[in-house]
Structures are given as C-alpha cells and as structure tokens.
C-alpha cells in the first residue's frame, strides 16, 4: 500500500448510498442511541415494574393514592420523566426503522413518519405535563381517594 500512495486505488471504494436528504452520521447516532438508551431503559423499566407490579400487592395496589405517594418524591418524578422520554424516543426510532423497512411507497412512508413523529411528540409533552403539574390533593371530589398526607395540607 505504501508504493501506491500517489496512484489511484485499484478499486474505487464504495460510496455509501444516500437518500436525497442525508444528514451526516444520523444513522450512527441512531444506532448508538438505541444501545445507550436500551441499557438505561432496562434498569429504569425493570425497577418500575418491580416497584409497581411485583412488590406490595402488585397491580392491586395501584390507584390514585399510590401514584400520589410515589410522585410526592422528586426521585420518582424524574425517574418517570426520564423513562417517558427515553422510551418514547427509543420506541419511536424503532418504529421509524420498521417504516423504512415495510412501507413501500414514498407517500406511505411520509404519512406514517409524520403520524409517528406527531404521536411521539404529543405523548412526551402530555406525559411531562402530567408528571410536573400533578396535584395530589385536588378539591371537589371524593376525599377518601386522596393520599393520607392531604389531610395535613388542609
């Protein structure tokens, strides 16, 4: 190879095939993100399932008071927020790859990807608002459904 320094290579290296609107390294970032977020999501979701679905009374313990009790701690608010954002982007990116593989016409791809991006953005915004504007002691309803610490607030 050292002798061929000045001459043209015998075989022209294959250029990566690019679509019209290519962004440099976008797919490498996607690849890296799926792996990084995947490992984080494993820890986040396994813990989430262990706390909510396995410990205590499992699914039977889940009600408004249970959610309020958890979200009284900033740790679980941030936990759920990170889980929401990472899971929606990880899942949305996975769905994007499936659309690339299975949607055959450009029109269908465009439509499905627009729908996907809109849904992902909507769910992330809605979920974030729910977590950070949550009111554990709403007035007007059945007070027995509220967590016990609401009595101290009043």
């Amino acid at each position, binding site marked *: 190879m050292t002798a061929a320094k000045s001459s043209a290579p015998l075989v022209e290296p294959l250029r990566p095939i690019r679509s019209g609107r290519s962004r440099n390294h976008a797919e490498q970032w996607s690849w890296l993100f799926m*792996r990084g977020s995947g490992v984080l999501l494993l820890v986040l*979701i396994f813990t989430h399932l262990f706390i909510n*679905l396995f410990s205590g009374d499992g699914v039977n313990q*889940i009600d408004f008071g249970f959610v309020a009790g958890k979200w009284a701690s900033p740790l679980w608010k941030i936990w759920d927020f990170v889980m929401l954002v990472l899971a929606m982007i990880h899942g949305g990116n996975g769905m994007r790859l499936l659309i690339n593989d299975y949607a055959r016409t450009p029109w269908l791809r465009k439509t499905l990807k627009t729908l996907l991006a809109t849904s992902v953005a909507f769910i992330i915004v809605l979920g974030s608002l729910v977590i950070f504007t949550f009111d554990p002691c709403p007035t007007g309803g059945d007070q027995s459904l509220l967590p016990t610490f609401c009595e101290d607030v009043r």
Partner: protein
Amino acid sequence: MWMWVVHRATGVAIFFFLVVHVLDTALVRVSPEAYNAVISSYKTPIYGIVEAGLVAAIALHAFNGLRVILVDTWPWALKHQRVLVWVVWGLFVLLMIGFLPRHLSNVFGGA
C-alpha cells in the same frame, strides 16, 4: 433470524402499550375517580394475563437487546451468539418463573 423477528414484534407491542399507558396515567390529571375507574380494569383477570404478556415481551426485548449489544461489540459474543440466544431464553424463563406465580395470585384473588 428468529430473535430478529421476536425483537421487532415485542418492540412494536411495547411501543403501542406505552402510548396507551401514558394516556391512562394522564387520567390522574383529570380526577382520582377517572384514574381509579380505568386502573381497576387493569386488575381484571383478562388484563392480568395481558400484563403477564407485556412483562414477557419487555423481558425478551431487554435480554435480546443486551445480546445484540454484546454481539456488536465483543468478538467472543459474535462467535458464540447461538449460545447467547439460549442464555436470553434462559434468563427470560427464570424471570417469568419469579414473576408469574406472584402476579397471577395477585390477579386471581390470592390477596
């Protein structure tokens, strides 16, 4: 090949559940009554079985995802990736053995 199909199928199932799950949790912002009404349906036997399936899908997707990462980055894992497929199923079976009895007794009124 089959794990590739499993990974895609479980991924799609988890994605759609996640969308529904954020929407149902959003009901805590509507009223405690609305949230509790919808969550009580998650405690019925049919949904209990769906939840077991969901946990199964998440466990398979997670363990197989770890296998994909190992195979991508570690030559030994690439060479032994068939063994690692069995490790994925082994971990999956162990997790379900730990989870199912407790969950199903919660759902089918062991409490």
